[in-house]
């Protein structure tokens, strides 16, 4: 097994310490940080997403794998910066105003980070102005989450505020959360909707490829 394969396996299995050790070993052996990212971490999280969609793994296993990825990525990040490895794009993500639920939002953020995106996590109870500022700061995608039927309506207000600020064409807007549907996303003028964290990655990849 190559080192990259061992790194992939460690992440998929959620073995954080092994994943961190494999990244450190790779760097010592002169494997480019970009290679460890693409062939190790990103490939591993793509596999995790696939296993989740196939019902082979569930939320606990996905969280454990994502944590292994996050810890390994922390070791890798300084090297990625010094090598000048570009990110796949920047995603500003948050749970909308009035809503404090973040399990789903965090899963989406972790899977996107595992796909090579830079994440700006705005947290929960996020106001429209915070999404606007994140877009001004260069976010390519604004991702909004809501669990409640009483807060999902704030997504529409956020999109209106972003449009009002003259920034609607500066970023793609995606929405998700338990009560959100593709029809609702379209009705409020979002660019995309995903039903789970794994398909959210595909959605962002498609949106930024066009």
């Amino acid at each position: 097994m190559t080192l990259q394969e061992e790194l992939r396996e460690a992440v998929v299995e959620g073995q954080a310490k092994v994943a961190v050790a494999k990244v450190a070993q790779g760097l010592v052996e002169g494997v480019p940080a970009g290679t460890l990212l693409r062939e190790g971490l990103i490939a591993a999280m793509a596999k995790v997403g696939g296993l989740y969609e196939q019902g082979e793994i569930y939320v606990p296993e996905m969280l454990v794998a994502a944590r292994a990825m996050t810890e390994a990525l922390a070791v890798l990040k300084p090297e990625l910066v010094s090598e000048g490895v570009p990110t796949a794009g920047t995603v500003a993500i948050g749970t909308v105003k009035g809503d404090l639920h973040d399990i789903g939002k965090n899963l989406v953020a972790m899977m996107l980070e595992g796909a090579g995106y830079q994440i700006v996590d705005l947290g929960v109870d996020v106001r429209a102005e915070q999404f606007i500022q994140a877009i001004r700061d260069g976010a390519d995608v604004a991702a909004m989450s809501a669990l409640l039927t009483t807060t999902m309506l704030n997504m529409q207000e956020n999109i209106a505020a972003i449009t009002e600020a003259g920034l609607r064409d500066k970023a793609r807007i995606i929405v998700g959360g338990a009560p959100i549907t593709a029809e609702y996303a379209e009705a409020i003028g979002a660019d995309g909707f995903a039903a789970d964290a794994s398909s959210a990655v595909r959605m962002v990849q498609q949106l930024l490829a066009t």
Partner: protein
Amino acid sequence: MSGPGTQQSTMASRERVELALAHTEPDRVPLDLGGSAVTGMHVDSVYRLRQALGLDAPGTPVKVVEPYQMLGEIAPDLLDALGVDVVGVGLPTNFFGFENEDWKPWTTFDGTPVLVPGAFKTEPDANGDILMYPEGDTSVPPSARMPNGGLYFDAIVRQDPLDEERLDVEDNLEEFTPISPAALAHVTREVERAAASGRAVLANVGDTAFGDIAFVPGMKLKHPRGIRDIQEWYMSLNLRPGYVNEVFERQCEIGLRNLEAVYDAVGDAITVIFVTGTDFGTQQGPFISPKLYRDLFKPFHVRVNDWIHTNTRWKSFIHSCGSIWRLLDDMVDAGFDVLNPVQTSAADMDPVALKATYGDRVTFWGGGVDTQRVLPFGTPDEVRAMVKERMRIFGSGGGFVFNTIHNLQARIPVENILALYDAVNEYRSYPLD
């Protein structure tokens, strides 16, 4: 509204529920509203419904009987007006560990006049948020927050750094305690009062919900120890199954002793016992694998249900939101008699398939109308049509207690709430359409 509940009924409420639970058709499909913290109504909606029904003068406040989700009191006059067949009984303290007493007025962010318990701190913080304190004790950090403009509370996670070497199951058991003599006296009084109303009694008194994420953060504890972070808890199911199993083992022993104490005090005056509200489903599928359910949760569900069925005439009630179709073979096999809230808006939760596959073994207590789209955003006609359809699908042969899918939330058009109970009244009589 044409007067739900005004129609002559020939059968007592309790008998109606018991027949439905025995998979026999009563005179009408039984109705629950307010029997538990997952079958109730947000106080804003209760206020507007009471106003629309002419039960109160404008401005009359409604009591918040469950402050975490801000559920309003379903008082006897409203039970009568709607023809509700179930009354709930719980422990004397709420999710935050204080009693619902010393009522004081407050106005919700949506402008609804309400009454809240004295220990409910109504002064907002610098952000305008409302903070809740364990046992109402403001000398310790808050345990829950309602954001400025919000409608509900959510737990504030207070997680000490985890030291793997020093993890102690006792730390995750602090909230599970033998029922106190005072609490038992309260439960006894409340069960007797509820039973005297002639309605079925739904009791939530045992602390037998294993791994309920609503309780993991320990909102009623002043200094929660152990694993209290929600994501850490979910990961622990995978990383520390031995630890979790030991927590459940000890909790099960305490819970069974509590159920025994309650049974000794009130016997079969309880109709249905709320065993667990742990959510096993997301919108798209189960949170955990069927194997993990079988390995970690099912053995304890079996033990609690076996105890109930061996020692009492109570029916056992499980609440789990979300898409749980892949877990239902095992859940039903674990011996649950009642399934709630039957979230048919989640993936793989088709009402016809649910009734056809499990209808001979479980009573569906919920699934009556979708609360994610139809009730808040649909038209009154859509609400009526769904109620009619669900009565026909779930009600056939008994085994159905009408309830919305989880609590009715705030900001539902009152016309839709009126249409809901109007349609329940119109379509609940057997033989069904």
